[in-house]
Every structure is written in structure tokens, then in C-alpha cells.
């Protein structure tokens, strides 16, 4: 009855929209905090450079917000357009956080508008700085609420099913499901981490391209410090997420780790290639998986063979898991070496090759975000609501989804190219040296 190709195209379209949206959404969650920190440091130390840093970041941020808003609107409506049966069911249980998310978003939008158009309006920079608090809170809270919706899909609870109908609905129990704490915190800190490393990329790139201004050095130092803190936090919370999976979603962990037989003292498989059911070229860490899952080398970890074949996630998520973890660890290392080098006076951290490593950090972090989301989402296949509704039951019965996919792809290509062109033009035509000069000459006069 339900058309298989429609289900397939619905999944592709949802994945395309989300994969495009999360790049801008992650920036949207992380960058306001960084702007706030820069503005605060500038205000505290009375250092014009940090204030300018906040201002220039904010200007670029507007472009990413615009794309984030329109793609977010798209995914919000696509949920109902592509998965009407799912939304009808989930709407009864989980619309509360969805509703709260729009309030957080509303709140952020209002204060961001005020913040952007009131530079130099207030007598004190402090008042202007205070406007950033609701922006950062709104941005983070919308990530919190929307992640709650997603964690419900992984661990549905807060209702009973009697004769195919949902009864005894408890919205708060549905929100505070077991997947929620690790998911929400992991999403938040990785967004902060990614934003920090993207901004580090920019600063390092400007330094490489000949601008030797103290402004970029201050920027790099500030964001690398933040990046180190957030990347360590991401790793710690990532470990908690692994423990959550072992307890509540063992099939996802087992598929991600290629762990087939239930056993005590399970080994952890790093890298490797799957070929006709054989694992090759892997690095095995003895007892690693038991430690990851239960902090106990002898603990028993459930294997994938315990699950019926049509309820197993695809095995390629192992590669996504490796990619995410590897990049995360690499970024901890990069920022740690940079900071220790800075304190100890190692000269190579100012060398060309190390700056290129830092430049690579931003895009790598974005790749890790994508890989992490694909892992989380593909890892709960074949369910749209784990254990309750299969993906094909949630899909639309309407045709033309493939055509809509084409339409949206064109839109995303235009938005993607447009945002990159506009952003690079914006900063290239107005480098920091010029802006500082302009501000000097305008002091006392009307500031525009």
C-alpha cells in the first residue's frame, strides 16, 4: 500500500534538508555564545579589539542566521509534509517541546534584531552587551527543545497504547526521556566547540594570508581556549552517550561497533573495513567496548545477533562513528598543543603548517557534526519511533516527492553558494585594518 520509492525519496529529502540545515543551525547555536564572550572580554578589559571581534562576528552571523531560519522553516513544515502519519501520532505526545522551541526562537529573533541595529545607540557598551544574553539563551534553548523532540523519537515514553490508540499521555514524562540528558548536552557542547573552531579557522586563515594584526592573534587565542574546553566536554559527554546506548539502545551501539556476539569483556573495533561479513584491517582494543559501555572491562555487551534481522540498523554507521570520534579527539589535541605551545613559547605553533592544521579544524568539526547526526539517525533505523512506528509507516502517501527533492536541492545550492560568496566578499572588502582606521577617524563624529 505504501509506495516504497516515496518512502525512499522522503528520507532523502529529509536528510538533505537536515544535513544542510545543521551546518547553519550549529553555527547559530554556537556563535552567539562566542560573540557574547568576546563582547564581555572587550568590555571588561576595555579592549576595542574584542568589541570589534564581536561586531564582525555578529555581522557574518546574520548571513548564517538568515539561511538557518529559512532552512529551519523548511524542515519544520517538511516534518508534516513528508511524515504526516508520524506527526499525527507524535503531535499528540511531543508537540510541547516543539512549541517551546518556537518561543525560544522568537525570543532570540527579537533580541538579535535589536542587538544588530543598536550599535552605538546606547551610552554604555554594557547595555548593548546585555542584549546578547537573551540571544545566546534563546539560541541554546531552541537547540535544547528540538533535541528533546529527537530524543523522544529514540526513546519514546510518556503514553500507553491501548488497542492501537494513545492514552494516558504525560507530556513532561515524554520530554524527560532517558535519551534526553546525553543528547541535549552533547548537541550543545559540540555546537559550541564547532563554532569556536570555525572562528579559529578564520583567524588562522587571515594570519596565513599575510595580515599579521594583533587582532587576529587575540581572536585565535580566545577561540582556541574555548575550543579546548568544549572539545574536552564533548568527549566526556560522548562517553556518557555510549553508556546510554549500551543500556537503552544496544542495537545502535552494536551496529556502530560491529559487535555481533553477546559477550563479556567485549573488544572495541577501531577503523577496519567490512567485506562479505568479514572485518579486515581493524585495530582491536581488548575490553575497550565493555569499558566504553559500562566502565567495567568484564561487563557483558549485547551483540547485534540478538535482534531480528529486519530491526538492525545498517552496518556502515561504524565508519561514521569512527569519523566523529577521530575528529573530536584530533581537535582536543590540536587546541591543547596550541595552548601549551603558547604558554611554553613553542615557536612551531606560529608556523605555516600548524596554522593550516588550525584552518582545517573548522571544516573538520562540521564534518564531525554531520557524521554524528547521520550515526544517530541512521542508527535508529528501521524505526521512526523506536519500537513503535517503522519509518515506512510514517511516510506520506502523496506522490511527487522526488520532484520536490530536486526543487529543494536547487534552493540549497543557491543558498549555499550565496552565503559563501556574500560572507567572503563582506570581509574581503572590509579587512580589519580598514575598519580600525575608519573607526579611529570617526571617533567624535557620527558613527555609522
Amino acid at each position, binding site marked *: 500500500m505504501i509506495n516504497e520509492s516515496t518512502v525512499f525519496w522522503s528520507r532523502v529529502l529529509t536528510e538533505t534538508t537536515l544535513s544542510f540545515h545543521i551546518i547553519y543551525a550549529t553555527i547559530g547555536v554556537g556563535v552567539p555564545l562566542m560573540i557574547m564572550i568576546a563582547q564581555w572580554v572587550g568590555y571588561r578589559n576595555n579592549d576595542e579589539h574584542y568589541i570589534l571581534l564581536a561586531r564582525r562576528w555578529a555581522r557574518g552571523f546574520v*548571513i548564517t542566521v538568515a539561511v538557518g531560519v529559512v532552512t529551519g522553516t523548511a524542515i519544520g513544515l517538511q516534518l508534516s509534509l513528508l511524515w504526516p502519519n508520524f506527526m499525527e501520532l507524535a503531535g499528540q505526545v511531543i*508537540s510541547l517541546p516543539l*512549541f517551546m522551541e518556537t518561543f525560544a526562537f522568537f525570543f532570540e529573533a527579537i533580541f538579535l534584531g535589536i542587538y*544588530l541595529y543598536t550599535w552605538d545607540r546606547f551610552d554604555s557598551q554594557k547595555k548593548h552587551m546585555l542584549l546578547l544574553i537573551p540571544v545566546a539563551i534563546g539560541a541554546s534553548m531552541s537547540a535544547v527543545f528540538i533535541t528533546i523532540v529527537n530524543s523522544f523519537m529514540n526513546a519514546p515514553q510518556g503514553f500507553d497504547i491501548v488497542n492501537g490508540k494513545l492514552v494516558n499521555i504525560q507530556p513532561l514524562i515524554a520530554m524527560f526521556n532517558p535519551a534526553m540528558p546525553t543528547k541535549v548536552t552533547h548537541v550543545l557542547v559540540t555546537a559550541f566547540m564547532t563554532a569556536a573552531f570555525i572562528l579559529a579557522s578564520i583567524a588562522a586563515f587571515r594570519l596565513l594570508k599575510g595580515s599579521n594584526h594583533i587582532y587576529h592573534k587575540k581572536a585565535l587565542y580566545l577561540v582556541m581556549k574555548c575550543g579546548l574546553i568544549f572539545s574536552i566536554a564533548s568527549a566526556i559527554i560522548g562517553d556518557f552517550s555510549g553508556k546510554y546506548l549500551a543500556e537503552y539502545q544496544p542495537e545502535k551501539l552494536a551496529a556502530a561497533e560491529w559487535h555481533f556476539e553477546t559477550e563479556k569483556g567485549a573488544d572495541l573495533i577501531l577503523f577496519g573495513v567490512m567485506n562479505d561479513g568479514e572485518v579486515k584491517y581493524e585495530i582491536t582494543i581488548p575490553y575497550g567496548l565493555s569499558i566504553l559501555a559500562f566502565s567495567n572491562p568484564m561487563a557483558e555487551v549485547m551483540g547485534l545477533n540478538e535482534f531480528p534481522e529486519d530491526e538492525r540498523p545498517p552496518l556502515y554507521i561504524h565508519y561514521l562513528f569512527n569519523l566523529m570520534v577521530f575528529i573530536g579527539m584530533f581537535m582536543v589535541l590540536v587546541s591543547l598543543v596550541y595552548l601549551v605551545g603558547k604558554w611554553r613559547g613553542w615557536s612551531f605553533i606560529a608556523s605555516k603548517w600548524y596554522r593550516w592544521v588550525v584552518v582545517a579544524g573548522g571544516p573538520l568539526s562540521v564534518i564531525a557534526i554531520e557524521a554524528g547526526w547521520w550515526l544517530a539517525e541512521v542508527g535508529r533505523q528501521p524505526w521512526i519511533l523506536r519500537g513503535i512506528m517503522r519509518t515506512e509507516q510514517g511516510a506520506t502517501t502523496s506522490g511527487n516527492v522526488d520532484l520536490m527533492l530536486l526543487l529543494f536541492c536547487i534552493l540549497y545550492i543557491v543558498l549555499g553558494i550565496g552565503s559563501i560568496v*556574500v560572507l567572503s566578499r563582506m570581509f574581503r572588502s572590509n579587512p580589519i585594518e580598514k575598519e580600525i582606521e575608519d573607526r579611529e577617524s570617526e571617533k567624535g563624529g557620527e558613527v555609522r
Partner: protein
Amino acid sequence: MNLEVLGISVLWIFLFGYVIVASIDFGAGFFNAYSLLTDRSHILTEIIKRYLSPVWEVTNVFLVFFFVGIVGFFPQTAFYYGTILLVPVSISLVLLGIRGSYYAFESYGSAGHKGYAFAYGLAGLLIPASLSVVFTISEGGFVEVVDGHPVLDYWKLYTSPLSWSIVLLSISAVLYISAVFLTWYAWKAKDIDASNLMRKYALIWSIPLIITAFGIIVELRGHNVEHYENIIAIWPLFALSGLLFLVTVWLIWKKRSYGLAVILLILQFFFAFFAYGGSHYPYLLYPYLTIHEGFTNKEMAIALVIVFILGLCLLLPSLYLLFRLFLFNKDYVTGKSNDHA
């Protein structure tokens, strides 16, 4: 008042909010493009930009609020409308995407790209047209349930005079609302040229607006008798709306109290919008879905209402602050201070 009616009223208010702010926005985009075409951009562009800058993001949230809210309060709408509207709403989404990004790209990046400005203006007319399809469909007669799944009859929809009248109404309403608002805004900014130009547009667009509004009521008589009778039953509300319309046009004609004209304009649409909504009661999608059948469970409804009230406590002061800093700030409106990033 029961929770269903409360829920739909709240959503209706937000949809009304969206209709007003989005109309100003969409219309402004169109007039901006039109003025580029007729070499009058020097008159209008500045004033439009000054108004839109701080609010373009907020406009979009009204829409998001409405569709998230309706799925929350009436989850079955996701099933019916979600299935039916895949194509028309996807088209609206792409157009909204072009518009939303354009504003930021234009004001921060490459100012003055003409091709994009036309796309922006055109999108402003196409979005209300494509979104108004929802109103047409809700009247019934375009959807059939096959094997338990709703299917939309596109041919019937595109050949129906009713759907084209609703499209025309939405476009002229957008241009009329926008023109009246900008007449006042430009006048307040002491930009007399812009104000006079917008005044002319407001008077022009008032004519198709009132013709289509009457036409639709007549067409409904043949299309959905039940709805038509409900409309006739509450005719005083529509009459009041019509009266307010006449006073607004008269004020604009006489170049008098533009501020009052804007208030009357909002009231006019408020009454018409709510009278229309009320006459549609209790159907969300005639004749398949009523607000009673489609309503969410009680626990969720109560939770949503509580969150809604708390949310408003946060939103209203913030919106007030936004208006006070920009819309009602003399220096900002007249362009004496322009503190953007």
C-alpha cells in the same frame, strides 16, 4: 469556552499577526522592485529598508508559530493537510527561502543586485498566492479520501474560479495593507515623496480588494452552502469591516490622520479575518475534519496553554521593546541614527 475553541482562537490570532506583518513585508518587496523598474527607487528604497531591517526575522516566526501550534493543538491536521499540501507548500517554502535569504544577503553583502531584487519582489506576490491555496482547500470539494488517505485533485483546484478569486484577494490585500502602512511610515519619517507615492498605490489596490472580497462570498454560495449561510448569519461583522475599510480609504484620500488609518486598517482585517474564521467553525477541512475531532488529548492541550501563557509573558515585553526602539523611535524612523552592525 472549551479548549478547542481557545486553541484555534490563539492560532488564528497568530495567523492574523502573520498576515499583517508578512503583508507589509511582501508588499514592500514588490513596491521596491516596481520602483526599480520605473526608476523611482530613490524615493522608496531607503524608507523600506529602514522599516524592514530589524523585523525581517520576527515576521517569519509568526508563521512557524502557527504551523507548529496547529500540529500541537490539532495533530490530525498534520495527517490531512500534510498529505495534501506537499506540492503547494513546498513551492511556498522555496519562495520563502529566496526571500528570507535575500534580505540578509542584500543588506550585508552585495547591495543593489537588480535581478535578485526582482526575484524578491515577485516572490512577495507568489508566496501569498501559493499559501492562500490552503484557504481554498479548506472550503472542501477538492480533496477525496481514497483507501483512507486524502488525495488532492489539482485539476479541479486550478480550474476553480473560487481558488483564483482567493489568490486575487490575497495579492490585493497584501499590496493594500503594505501601501497603507508605508504611507504612514514614510509620512512619519517626513519623507513626503515616498508617502505620496504609497498613498497612490493604497488607493489603487483598495479597488480589487473590495471587489474580490464580495465576489468570494457570492461564489461560496455555489460552492459550500453551509459556509455561505454561516457568513450571512454573522453579516454585521462583515459590514463593520466594510465600514472600517471605507473610513480608511476616505482618510487616505483626504490625506488625513494616516496613523488612525493604519489602526482602522488593522481593525478592518481583524473583523473580517475573525468573522471568516468564525463562519468556518467547526470545520478545519470541510467536511472531513472538525476542530472537535482533530483536537489533541486533554493533558497536552493544558500543557500547551500553560506554555503559551508563559511564552506570551516573555514575548509581549520583548516585542514592545523592539517597537519602542525602532518603529516608535523618532531618530531611527527619520533616519537620524542608523546604528546597524
